[in-house]
Structure formats: structure tokens, C-alpha cells
């Protein structure tokens, strides 16, 4: 395996751990944390690829920077929604938010 493949494998495993957390946990805050893990894994894959492959100079780092900024915005809005929902339902368990269930 090439050096890049090892880093991509690490990013892949981290991404799937995060995906499992998003799918399986009940606590919405843990879901947000797992989402951050997935974003980190994508960033890791981008930076590793940019480090080992020729391309536009600096594009991998700049893309990762923008993803970090957007992750910050996402976590802010997401946790604001969680707190608003908590104020409404007095719980952060995801399967209790079922008012719209048909």
C-alpha cells in the first residue's frame, strides 16, 4: 500500500465511526459530535491527498480551512436548535422528537 492509502484508510475508518454514531446514538448532542468526527475525517482525506498528489497548489489546505469554518457555523446553529428543542420538550433524546410522525 502506498503512503497515501494508509492515510485514506485512517480517514475512512474515522468517517465510518462517525457515521455509526450519527445513525445509532439517541442523544442529539452526541449525534452532533459524531458529525464533527465525519467532517474531520473528510478534512484528513483532503489534506492527505493534497500532500501526496500534484494539483492546484494549496487547494487541499484552503478547502480544509473553509470546511473548518463551515463546521463551526454548522455546530453553532445545530446546538442552538438542540437547545430550542430541549426547551420545548425537556429532553435531548432524538426519538422523542416525534410530533411530525405520521
Amino acid at each position: 500500500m502506498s503512503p497515501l492509502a494508509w492515510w485514506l484508510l485512517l480517514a475512512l475508518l474515522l468517517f465510518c465511526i462517525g457515521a455509526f454514531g450519527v445513525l445509532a446514538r439517541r442523544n442529539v448532542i452526541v449525534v452532533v459530535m459524531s458529525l464533527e468526527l465525519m467532517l474531520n475525517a473528510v478534512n484528513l482525506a483532503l489534506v492527505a491527498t493534497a500532500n501526496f498528489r500534484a494539483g492546484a497548489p494549496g487547494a487541499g489546505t484552503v478547502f480544509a480551512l473553509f470546511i473548518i469554518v463551515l463546521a463551526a457555523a454548522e455546530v453553532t446553529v445545530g446546538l442552538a436548535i438542540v437547545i430550542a428543542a430541549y426547551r420545548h420538550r425537556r429532553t435531548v433524546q432524538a426519538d422523542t422528537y416525534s410530533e411530525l410522525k405520521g
Partner: protein
Amino acid sequence: MPGGDFHPWLFVIVAAWVLVCGLGVVLFRKVMYSAVAMVFCFLGVAFAYALLNAPLLAVVQVLVYVGAISVVIIFAIMLTEVHSGPLRLFFNRQTLAAALLSLAAAAVLAVAGLSSEVESVGEKSLTPGVRELSRIVFDRFVFPFEFVSLVLVAAMVAAIVLARREEERG
């Protein structure tokens, strides 16, 4: 093993660190333990950036993720976990399906990504330094830069509006 100007064992240490802490985020029963594991996972990813010749990203990762996002998440935990009794159900009911789905996604991605030619072009780094990077950001990527600041302001306003307590309108 991963090449570069560092010892291959460093990769093993960083990979084990990141994966163990990532599993901790998903598997810890207490939310605060998950948050601490997440902080250490972010630190491990910052270390990985440093190994990948992106020291600027490592610094930004520590500043934004370890510094800011962790604080926001821990604040949210402390605001919501006031009465945390013993949880009876800690995963939801689709845990088996979720595990199978993520394993299948891992297999598909591994087959698709790692079997194609992911050869590295060479041993030397292609990542530019901080001076060159700032030139790139403020020259080629100046429109996304301004746009992302607009997104940040919008997110801040939205968070304030969403999390504000409802007041009597009169």
C-alpha cells in the same frame, strides 16, 4: 508504511489515538465523557495535519475545534443535562442496522478508494507554506473567503434567534 520525513511508528500512534478516541465518542455512555474523547480526537487529527506538512491547519484545528467548538458543545451539554438520571436506552433501536450500514459503507469506500491507483507522486511535500497559502487565499479564493464570513455572520444571528428565550410580545 506511510512515507515522509517522520518515523512510521508516529503514524501508527496517531492512527490508534484518533480511532480509539473516535470510538470513545460513539461508545461512552456519559455525554461528558464523549465530549472529552472528542477533544482528544481533534487533538490527534491536529497531530496528523502536522505530520502531513500542514502546520497551519494543525494550528487552526487546535484553535477552532479544540478551542471553540468543544467549548460550545460542552456548554450545550451543561445546559441540557441538568437532570441526567440513569439512561435506560443509550443507543436507539436501529443499532444493528446502523452498524451494518456503516460497515457496508466502509467496505464500499475501501474497495472504491483504495483499489484504484492512489499512488503518491513522490516523497517530497507539495503543500505550500503559510506565506504562499495566505497569498492563495486572498488572491484566488478571495470570493469564497468573503462569502464564508457572510455565512458565519448569518449562522451567528440564526443561533442567537433560535436559542433566545421566547418573550412576551406586547
